[in-house]
């Protein structure tokens, strides 16, 4: 066990959902195992429906596992914990709270009123929204809203930050800016980052390790360590090679799935 907190261990996790439309069940995850070290930046890529969001929700404590066990720092995960922050894809800000109060929500829940004002102001300027501190979510653009979501999640200084396609709804320019901001946040806070994305480039640009998942049932189809230094050049030959390798594995995962069904 390392001194730093933020170790995630998934051991042979299977998750089965009851389907509401049919009297049947659906295997979302099948025997998934992974180890994520403290301060590591890991991405999970896969096509939609491969169970990657379910996996993240299990780590967050929002879903229970059917078989197997998920651990955080050696403790079995049961229920949510502010140590494990989550940034949703969109529409998760509290619309009745201003930017400032959204970011302060977790601190207030933890009873940290003393350090609140200073920390919230610091976070607001960190994500570049000083002018909008008192605006409501509906008055912000999509990119601004995701910045607030990020600031709200890191306000409680989680050991693990779970990112569920946080940039999925953004245009490509805003997206690239936000990717740099994510790296900045990671370098400053040194927490474990687990990013879910279906954007292969995003995964390569940001992470130290990439898990590739195949759909129906969701399984780990491969694992690729990345040793490129930051900041990464999106057009370097190494970057392109890794991208091709991942795409090949994703394709392979698809073929295998067809065979499996037959």
């Amino acid at each position, binding site marked *: 066990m390392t001194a730093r907190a933020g170790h995630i261990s998934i051991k042979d996790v299977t998750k089965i959902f009851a389907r509401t439309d049919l009297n049947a069940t659906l295997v979302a995850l099948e025997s998934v195992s992974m180890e994520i070290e403290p301060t590591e930046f890991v991405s999970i890529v896969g096509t939609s429906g491969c169970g990657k969001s379910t996996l993240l929700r299990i780590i*967050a404590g*929002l879903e229970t596992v059917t078989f197997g066990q998920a651990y955080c720092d050696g403790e079995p995960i049961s229920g*949510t*914990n*502010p140590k*494990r*922050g*989550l940034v*949703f894809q969109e*529409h*998760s*800000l*509290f*619309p*009745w*709270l*201003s930017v400032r109060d959204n970011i302060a*929500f*977790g601190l207030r*829940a*933890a009873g940290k009123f003393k350090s609140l004002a200073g920390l919230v102001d610091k976070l607001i300027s960190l994500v570049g929204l000083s002018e909008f501190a008192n605006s*409501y979510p*509906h008055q912000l653009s999509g990119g601004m809203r995701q910045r607030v979501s990020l600031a*709200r*999640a890191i306000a*409680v200084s989680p050991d693990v930050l779970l990112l569920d396609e946080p940039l999925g709804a953004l245009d490509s320019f805003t997206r690239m800016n936000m990717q740099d901001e994510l790296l900045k946040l990671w370098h400053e806070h040194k927490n474990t980052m687990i990013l879910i994305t279906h954007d292969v480039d995003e995964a390569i640009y940001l992470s130290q390790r990439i898990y590739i998942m195949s759909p129906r049932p969701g399984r780990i189809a491969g694992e690729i360590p990345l040793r490129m230094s930051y900041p990464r050049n999106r057009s370097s030959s190494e970057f392109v090679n890794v991208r091709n390798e991942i795409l090949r594995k994703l394709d392979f995962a698809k073929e295998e799935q067809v065979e499996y069904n037959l």
Partner: protein
Amino acid sequence: MTDKTASLTAEPVSAADGRRLESRAPTPWELRQIEAAPKSKNRIAADRAICTLPLIIAVIVVAQYKMTPNLNDAATTNLYTGFILLMTSLVLIKYIRSFFSKTSFERLLERAPLYSVGFLLFALYDYATLKTGILPLPYFPWPDRILNGIYEDRVLLLDCVKNSLILLFSGYFAGASIGLFTGLSAGLSRRVRYWVLPLVQVLGPIPSTTWLPIILIVAASLFGGSVFLIALGVWYPLTMTSMQGVLNIPKANFEAARILGASKARLLFRVALPAAMPNIFQGLTQGMSVACTALMVAEMMGVESGLGWYINWQRGWAEFAKMYGAVIVICVTFSIVNFLLSFIKRRVLRWQEGYWN
């Protein structure tokens, strides 16, 4: 169109300190000026005439009242004249301000047709009653008589307003808080919903005033019984709307709050309650109209005070002018209550999209 561009570009260049207008964003008022289509000379003159119209009609109202002969030489007082002049002076203040402020002018221009028709209705009613008797006494007293009725009974009426409001708000707050409690807990808990929903579905469709005859016999105090009646009427819409409000909250809001470490109490008071506020206010508005109806019925049938009692009592004396007077007082009272409610609603729901437009 050329005027518009000129006003933006010419000014900064000619500014002595070389300051450029583009360096700051226009205020909302300036923006409206920039974007509004320029008005023609005739249009401006017509707008001014529309703004003057209510004042002209007001003068006609007073002139008709004072100068034309009354039917059967009925005696009149100056109370009506005073009332019309008071109304006129309020419009006159707006009229004078409209010469100095463009915003006031626009606002008056929008309101002027309404004021004109208002004054015109006064003139027509006065003509049909006091001057010609087309609408006969005692059923249709003229405005001066109604105003005198209110003036005569002003102390009693004020007392009635006080008693009505005490009864109204006792019932309203009791019903609203219990309704809020049942609605929120039914929304949050499946088990509570299982037991509460059938109860609401059985009791809800019964108009709360139906219970009045029973309450008149059973209740120990008429005041307490009426409070119960009003509360029951408010309880139903508030239970339904606040429950629906909680059920409509996106799951992501609760999940985000849980991830951030919110306790059960925080989930209830800082997530469920504010998120359901738009629905809750819908229930509060519905509940207010039910409460006002229940109040009137209770006062007319049993409670021996309040505006509903007053109007029924004056009916016994065939004092039609005072009955109409009571209707006016009721209208003013409930309008103020509703205005306050919508004022609070606007403050609380200012986070909602569309509230700024």
